[in-house]
């Protein structure tokens, strides 16, 4: 089987037979292909299309298990060979890099010019393409928006091998559909992203974190005051474990004098015990984990801003630990194996939907994953199916992985 696949893909790019470690969420792969550029990616995809082989795109595989397991994995397309920094235009505050560029490397390179891509890598080792494909976003989305708001251009290869681009390298551009947004968060089911152009921001001279433990009954008032503050917090985060009082922290960045003064002015908004610190609290900008080994159940749950305190209470009440962006309305919730996963998902989903949001299952123990309703009711699912069908009519890319088993 492996030999057949290798033969049909011969000459497209670097290939090897897959190892057990290349399995995608428990589904074994046959071949790992590592194209060096868009041209090789195109040749590979054309060959896969012709041979009827399914493809799962892989960045650093940091969270390849998230989402639904794919139905079949003939080829793992490894993007890490496409890791060049193509351009960092300091005067234009934009950068273009290959999809396989690790975010950590990108951060260091951009910092040389005093710039940054404002994205918080919650899992630590993402590639740029993986971050875009999953719509990665952390605390500072309150400041600059999420990755969808920062991606200004993409180059990609479609399932049939067609190479195309959308957007460009200027921040302001309304020529044609904004496919960058469509591909952001598409989980590798619409196209293989090969290159991304992003908008950058200056790295602020100094940052302060203002934090406090807040009793649940005061949480609505504290969060409400913080997100409405004209002191311009760049992030407002909340963290809560079952049975404990929530912790709240806000990030204040800017000039050394200005940010220090603003942090001092913000402290009273959190209550009497608030502390101003140069470092974030330990839970800041992380995916929560439960006490047990690993985090068998991981959810993303959202609500309108004023609904966040209720969502926090609902999650901790269901035995989940939550961390997330109260300033944006997006939380991650994790629970350990002892939990009734299905009941927790249902409870959180009902509440989040009532509060204008949604709840999706990012990860779960293999035993329960296929029985859980991963996405819940997805508005406009039929349109999404039509989009998927236009881009990838043969379901070559990660079949079954995304909403509605697309």
């Amino acid at each position: 089987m492996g030999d057949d696949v290798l033969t049909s893909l011969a000459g497209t790019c670097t290939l090897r037979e897959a190892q057990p470690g290349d399995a995608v969420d428990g589904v074994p792969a046959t071949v790992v292909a590592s194209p060096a550029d868009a041209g090789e990616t195109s040749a590979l995809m054309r060959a896969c299309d012709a041979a009827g082989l399914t493809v799962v795109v892989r960045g650093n595989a940091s969270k390849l298990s998230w989402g639904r397991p794919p139905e079949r994995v003939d080829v793992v397309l490894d993007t890490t060979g496409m890791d060049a920094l193509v351009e960092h235009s300091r005067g234009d505050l934009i950068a273009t890099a290959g999809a396989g560029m690790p975010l950590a490397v990108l951060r260091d390179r951009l910092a040389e010019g005093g710039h940054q891509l404002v994205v918080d890598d919650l899992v630590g080792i993402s590639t740029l393409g993986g971050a875009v494909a999953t719509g990665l976003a952390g605390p500072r989305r309150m400041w600059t928006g999420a990755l969808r708001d920062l991606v200004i251009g993409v180059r990609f290869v479609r399932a049939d091998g067609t190479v195309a681009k959308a957007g460009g390298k200027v921040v302001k551009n309304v020529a044609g559909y904004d496919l960058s947004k469509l591909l952001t968060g598409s989980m590798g089911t619409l196209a293989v992203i090969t290159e991304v152009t992003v908008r950058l921001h200056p790295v602020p001279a100094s940052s302060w974190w203002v934090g406090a433990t807040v009793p649940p009954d005061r949480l609505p008032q504290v969060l409400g005051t913080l997100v409405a503050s004209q002191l311009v917090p760049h992030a407002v985060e909340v963290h809560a474990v079952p049975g404990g009082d929530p912790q709240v922290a806000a990030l204040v960045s800017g000039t050394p004098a200005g940010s220090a003064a603003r942090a001092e002015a913000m402290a009273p908004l959190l209550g009497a015990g608030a502390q101003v610190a140069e470092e974030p609290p330990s839970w800041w900008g992380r995916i929560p984990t439960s006490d047990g080994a690993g985090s068998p159940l991981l959810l993303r749950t959202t609500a309108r801003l004023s609904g966040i305190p209720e969502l926090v209470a609902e999650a901790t009440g269901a035995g989940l630990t939550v961390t997330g962006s109260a300033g944006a309305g997006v939380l991650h919730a994790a629970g350990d194996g002892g939990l009734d996963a299905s009941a927790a998902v249902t409870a959180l989903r009902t509440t989040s939907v009532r509060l204008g949001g949604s709840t999706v299952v990012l990860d779960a123990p293999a035993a329960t994953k296929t029985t859980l309703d991963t996405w819940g009711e997805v508005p406009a699912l039929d349109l999404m199916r039509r989009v998927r069908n236009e881009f990838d009519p043969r379901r070559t890319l990660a079949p079954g992985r995304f909403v509605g088993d697309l």
Partner: protein
Amino acid sequence: MTNSQPRGSVTAVLEDLRGVVAAAHLLTDPAQLVTYECDGLAAYRVTPGLVVLADTAEEVAAVVRSCARHRVPFVARGSGTGLSGGALPHAEGVLVVTSRLRTLHAMRPEDQRAVVDPGVINLQVSREATPLGYYFAPDPSSQQICSIGGNVAENSGGAHCLKYGFTSNHVLALDVVTPTGEQVTLGTEAPDPPGYDLVGAFVGSEGTLGVATRAVVRLTRLPEEVRTVLAGFRSTDQAGAATSAIIAAGIVPAAIEIMDALAIEAAEKAVSCGYPAGAGAVLVVELDGAEQEVEHEYAEVERICREAGTFEFRMATDAAERAEIWKGRKSAFAAVGRISPDYIVQDGVVPRTSLPEVLRRMGEISAERGVRVANVFHAGDGNLHPLVLFDASEEGATERAEEVSGMILDLCIEHGGSITGEHGVGADKARYMPRMFTDDDLDTMQLVRCAFDPDGIANPGKVYPTPRLCGERPRVVQGAHPLQEAGMAEVF
């Protein structure tokens, strides 16, 4: 569905709508139809077959369902201020006007959200939100009249989008009538809804993916401090150098705008804005945010402007003075009418670092062709609005102006920019799309259109030059598109 069936007529649609839409809101009288023959780009005019003034989302859906049934094209229209002919009607189609859907359903500062109908006027959202401490950030110069539906369709920006982003960064969810007549909700009030970002795809789609009937938009907190600065320079080069230095200093102002001598002359004649006499360029910089930061940035901006050679540096100290500074800038398009009988408003983008080179080349082109060009631009993000001046009564002047206008777009593309930063492609620039995008790029965009609109009845002929028929793949050489044959050809 196939694409080969003949299109039906608006008469069939009219029959369907009798009894569904009030008779007074079904316009067929030529005298009434003429009112709708163009949008803000009056150079293109087509009398629509039928105009429907919808009162509810259900009425919009009824119109679109009927159009889908009879395969009749439809065009959505808000306030008709678009500058690219996006709302240009179809001669054998229906114009669906959403202006009467103008309910502000909810203002929820605690959630930083407003829920509005598509016909609500942009400025009205900010007016209602301001007493609550918030505003709607996208601020096109036309904000006193343009509609939220139009903003959504065009992904409109404004002077302040340098810091706060465009409409697409401020829309969370949309109720939409798809071209097949379904009423769907895209997105949720909270961010990160499950599935593809269809809100992101819809915003900026210029009415080609359906009609928006309701929007959930973001409200932005009013800043604690705002400082607006006006600096006079001898040349646009100096003003441009100051802009670059401000950005290099790590400052992201709310807005940075430049006007050149000709644009200043026009504004002065129209609204007596009192800009520094003898200026070759004025730079308007607005700083906003927390007081301590704005103070620091202000000191930096003043230092930079003086180093770049400003001969007059003013700061607005209150709202009235601020409005005075903005008056000249915001009236610039209309003001040009004072110095030229006719003009083309161009909208192109270049990387900010190419601004000096592009302005120089534009000056050369203008001199070579003997066509005056006034410049007003969002310098912070490289979005140029050259105003190409001409007198249509002069032999060949219109053609020369159009040629210069096209050369300016080529210049933008050459420098890695875009043919439109905020006014959209519409009917006007569809023919330029292949200069910026390959056939494969354009075909990929068509995939989205086919998913939403398999019969190609939503605003046909706009944005894309010769759309591939849905279901047809791969691209083959084709004759005239049926849409063109059906009457759109006169548009080009």
